[in-house]
Every structure is written in structure tokens, then in C-alpha cells.
């Protein structure tokens, strides 16, 4: 386990009692407002001393109340992107970004690269007071990343940014996760971010862990939908086969061809695609004459009716397990049942760029 966290803490009427262990990669902390996400992250960062706790990151014990171990924040090797940006008002953007260089030797992260990715090159000589909200947040992200952290804590880092900017920054977190194997604790409300980035999902509710597990399991398990049904979706592993001239990329997922808007990955590379359950149309007959390009044959493994009018079907296809959200009315009309065969129809354009990520699922 890369990160192991056990915390007990009281704050007024709120009690945190969280206990989770996660493998390498990016762990998304999910939960409603006030469920304790920031409190957990602060305790991991050493900014809050929990009543009782034990935090180990990559074999290094940061906190062990029983043993009296409690590393101060500056010796925890963190990059913390705060929920509010917390830029130093007396330093220029450049000095903010380079702040950690005064204390840690920069090795991995390349200043120019980070600045370019975040689109803050023209802001370097400004003071934080003269930035817009989103600009501040981007500088704050850069400042944390440039500290060459061995653990990243990110509290809703992209909430204030527009979609285009999000799409530019997300791959960087992927790279940190995959290439540099920096463990990341990431708070997010966005299902797309979760699906794309999460190795592991930890769902918090009133200070307790309500669900946890590998992202593919948690998101792809029709019986639990900790992030709400709209976040349900399966993650398929695929491999790039070709980039076509009309702007589509052809993938191979367990022998089934899939067409996506051009992906940035090279031919032969593995990628993971999240297919949201609500984007999948089911058909008992092989469909034809449709605008949707991706059709996957499969067998219904499991069908679960939700509290509302919907149901979630999990489908075993050659490409892997797929989730589909349909109305109970349709399920009845189509006589969907466990063991029934059917076709899953997925629109190419319905797969959002933020749902396509590098790396194996």
C-alpha cells in the first residue's frame, strides 16, 4: 500500500473517523460538502494534528500518534494545492512558483514546462492581487507541482477552471501518477475527473469511509454507485490501432474496434476510456443505419433497478465489462434480464476528451 491513512479527530460537532489504504496511483476523495475531505488532507499534510492517527506514505511514517511520531509539514515532502489558492501576496507570481526552490532542490519538474502547461507565462511578473480567480488557482497548482513533491494533495484543484484548461492540465496529473509514480490524494466532485484520473476511489460520508476500492471496480460495480448514478460508468482498456484521416482514432478493445475523436497517444499505446453508463444505448437486435459508430455485442450479467425510474445493467462484452443506464420501462419492454444478449451502442462524440486517459485501466 502506498498510502495508508487512519485518522480520528473531533471538530466541534463533526467527528472524523477515516481509515483507508490505497495502492500506488491517484486516489480520489469523494464526498458531499462537509464530509471531511479537507480535514483528511490537512491531517495528511500535518497542518492539523488529529486526536489520534497513523499516516504512512510510501513506507515513510508521517504520523503515528501512538509512537509520538509527527513530522512537521515541511519535512513531509508535499505539494498541497489548497481549496483556496493561498498565494503569497508579497511575492510575484514567479517568486510564488519558485518558492519551494529555496528549500528543496528542483530535480524533476521543469519550470518552463509547468508554466506553459498552465498558461501563466504572461503573469510571471505580476503580484497575485492582480490576477483573476482562475489565474490564481493555476499559479497555486504550479507552485505545488514545482516543489517536486513526493506526495501531492489536491483539494478540488480544477473546480475554478474552464473545460479547455482542465483538458490541458489533466494529462499532467496523469504523468505524475504514471511516469513519476507520485502518489496523489485528489478531492473532486467531477465524475469525469474521477473516472479519468482515479486509481482508487475513497468515498467519505459524515467523516467516515462509505466505500473504497479500485476506480474501475467502484465505478463499474452496478451495485454501488457512491458517486451517484450519473457518475457510473465502466472503464475499458484499449490499444490504439490507427489514426484515420477524418479525425478519428481507431482502437482495439478485446478485438472490438472502437472509434474515438483523435487521441494524442501513439499507435500501439494502451489507453483507458471511461464510458458513462448513461451514454450507452442498448438494442436487442443488431442495429444498423445509426449515426453511432461503436457497437459492442454482449451478455447481460446483472441488472439492478435503482430507487428512481432507472436501472443499471452490466454487460459482459469482448472489450470488457460495460455499464448501461436505462429506464426500468425500457428494460421491461426489451425483456432485458440476466443472461440476455444485446448490443451496446456508444456514440463516438459522446466520449468526452476528459474521459480518455493514457495508461492501462
Amino acid at each position: 500500500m502506498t498510502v495508508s491513512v487512519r485518522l480520528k479527530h473531533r471538530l466541534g460537532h463533526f467527528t472524523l473517523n477515516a481509515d483507508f489504504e490505497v495502492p500506488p496511483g491517484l486516489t480520489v476523495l469523494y464526498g458531499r460538502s462537509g464530509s471531511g475531505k479537507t480535514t483528511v488532507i490537512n491531517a495528511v499534510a500535518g497542518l492539523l494534528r488529529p486526536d489520534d492517527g497513523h499516516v504512512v506514505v510510501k513506507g515513510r511514517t508521517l504520523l503515528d500518534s501512538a509512537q509520538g511520531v509527527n513530522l512537521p509539514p515541511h519535512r513531509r515532502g508535499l505539494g498541497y494545492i489548497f481549496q483556496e489558492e493561498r498565494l503569497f501576496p508579497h511575492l510575484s507570481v514567479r517568486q510564488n512558483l519558485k518558492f519551494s526552490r529555496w528549500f528543496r532542490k528542483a530535480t524533476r519538474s521543469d519550470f518552463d514546462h509547468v508554466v506553459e502547461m498552465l498558461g501563466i507565462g504572461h503573469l510571471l511578473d505580476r503580484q497575485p492581487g492582480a490576477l483573476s480567480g482562475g489565474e490564481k488557482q493555476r499559479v497555486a497548482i504550479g507552485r505545488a507541482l514545482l516543489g517536486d513533491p513526493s506526495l501531492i494533495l489536491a483539494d478540488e484543484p480544477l473546480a475554478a477552471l474552464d473545460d479547455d484548461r482542465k483538458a490541458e492540465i489533466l494529462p499532467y496529473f496523469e504523468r505524475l501518477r504514471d511516469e513519476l509514480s507520485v502518489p496523489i490524494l485528489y478531492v473532486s466532485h467531477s465524475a469525469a475527473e474521477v473516472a479519468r484520473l482515479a486509481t482508487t476511489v475513497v468515498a467519505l460520508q459524515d467523516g467516515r469511509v462509505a466505500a473504497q476500492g479500485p476506480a474501475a471496480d467502484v465505478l463499474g460495480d452496478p451495485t454501488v454507485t457512491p458517486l451517484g448514478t450519473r457518475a457510473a460508468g465502466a472503464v475499458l482498456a484499449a490499444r490504439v490501432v490507427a489514426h484515420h484521416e477524418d479525425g478519428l482514432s481507431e482502437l482495439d478493445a478485446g478485438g472490438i474496434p472502437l472509434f474515438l475523436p483523435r487521441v494524442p497517444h501513439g499507435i500501439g499505446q494502451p489507453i483507458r476510456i471511461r464510458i458513462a453508463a448513461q451514454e450507452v444505448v442498448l438494442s436487442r437486435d443488431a442495429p444498423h443505419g445509426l449515426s453511432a459508430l461503436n457497437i459492442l455485442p454482449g451478455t447481460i450479467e446483472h441488472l439492478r433497478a435503482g430507487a428512481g425510474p432507472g436501472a443499471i445493467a452490466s454487460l459482459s462484452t469482448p472489450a470488457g465489462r460495460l455499464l448501461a443506464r436505462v429506464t426500468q420501462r425500457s428494460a421491461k419492454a426489451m425483456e432485458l434480464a440476466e443472461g440476455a444478449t444485446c448490443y451496446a451502442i456508444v456514440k463516438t462524440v459522446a466520449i468526452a476528451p476528459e474521459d480518455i486517459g493514457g495508461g492501462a485501466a
Partner: protein
Amino acid sequence: MDWLTATEWTAVRLSLRVAFWATLFSMPLGIFVAYALARWRFPGRQALNILVHLPLIMPPVVTGYLLLLAFGTQGPVGGFLEAQFGVTFAFRWTGAVLAAGVMAFPFMVRAVRLSIEAVDPKLEQAAATLGASRVWVFMTVTLPLILPGIIAGMVLTFAKGMGEFGATITFVSNIPGQTQTIPLAIDLLLETPGGETRAARLAILSIVLAAGALALSEWLSRRVADKVARA
């Protein structure tokens, strides 16, 4: 140069020197004490707080007398310093510096302390997560953010250094060229029937000098504030 006598010019120069060094020396100590009072909980904190305020509560003559008892050549601290480091305060301009610094210390500490208490600890936390140890957090974040308080404290100390009378004359007496600062010279003139005009001249000069320091500090503060300006 006949506007003031030579002795008076000497007093002016001496006053500037005393105010300058008093400001310079009490600043670091003032910052330290202010930080301790603002941020640390330790036994004797309240006693330290009272000690800092003493020069304000007691008549200056008493403060001067206590300084004489402690830092005079016969006093325990004064004797020690003289024996160990060859530093003498008694009847020297250094003693005037000490008196001015002590008398201004409550203001220095208060000004800095107010600023420290206004610093958002969240910024200090952010600095810590970026690898700054406590000392570095202080140097890189706290200190720049409390500059307005430090400047205010320095102005008050400088002004007090130009104006301190009671403790200075009691501690180091009035020795022209050594310890006769502007206030001591003015007092002398006021004690003398008919000395008012020359006293007024000295007072005006003293005001002009202090006003210069004040203007400088305002300009500095403005610069600092502009830098930190929240949009």
C-alpha cells in the same frame, strides 16, 4: 551656523545618532519579543508582557533610576558587560541609546505584535507545505508581511529616540557632546530664564528631522502596501 550654537549642533548630531542606534537595536529584539508574545504560550509570558510595558507605566525617572542601578558601572549588568565586553553605558551616548530603546520598547513590541496577529496563518501553513521550516516560514512569509508593523515600530522608536528625556537624563546625566541630546538641551534652555527662543529653535529642528523620518517611513509603508495590495 549662528542659528544654533556649536553645542546645540552637537546635540542635534548626537540625537540623530542615539535615535538611529536605538531604532536599529531594538528592532530585532522587539520582533522577537512580539513574536513570542503573539504566538507562544510559555510560563512567564504574562510577566514578560508586563516587563515590556513597564517603561510606559512608571515615571521615566524611575526607569532611568532602575537603568542606573542595573547598567551603571556599579550595577550588576553594567559591571558584567564592562568586564566581559568592555561595553560601558554609564555617562556615555551608548547609555542614551539604551534609555531611548527601553522607553520605546513597548511601542515597538505592540506595533509588531499587532501585525503578527494579523498575519493569516494559512499562508504560513502553505509555506510549510512547500518545504519551509519554521525559521524559513518566518523569514520568507511572516517577516515580509509584518513589515508595516516593523516600520511603524521603528518610526515610533526613532521619534521617541529624538524626544526621550526623563530616563536619559536620570541614567546618563547631561554631558554636552556625550549624552546631551536635543531634549536635554531644550530642557536646559527652558530651565534658564529667557531660554525659550533657542529652545524653540531646537524643538523645530527636531521636528523637521523627525518629520523627515516619518515621511520616509510613510513612503516605505506605501511601497510595501502596494506590493501586497489585494486587488
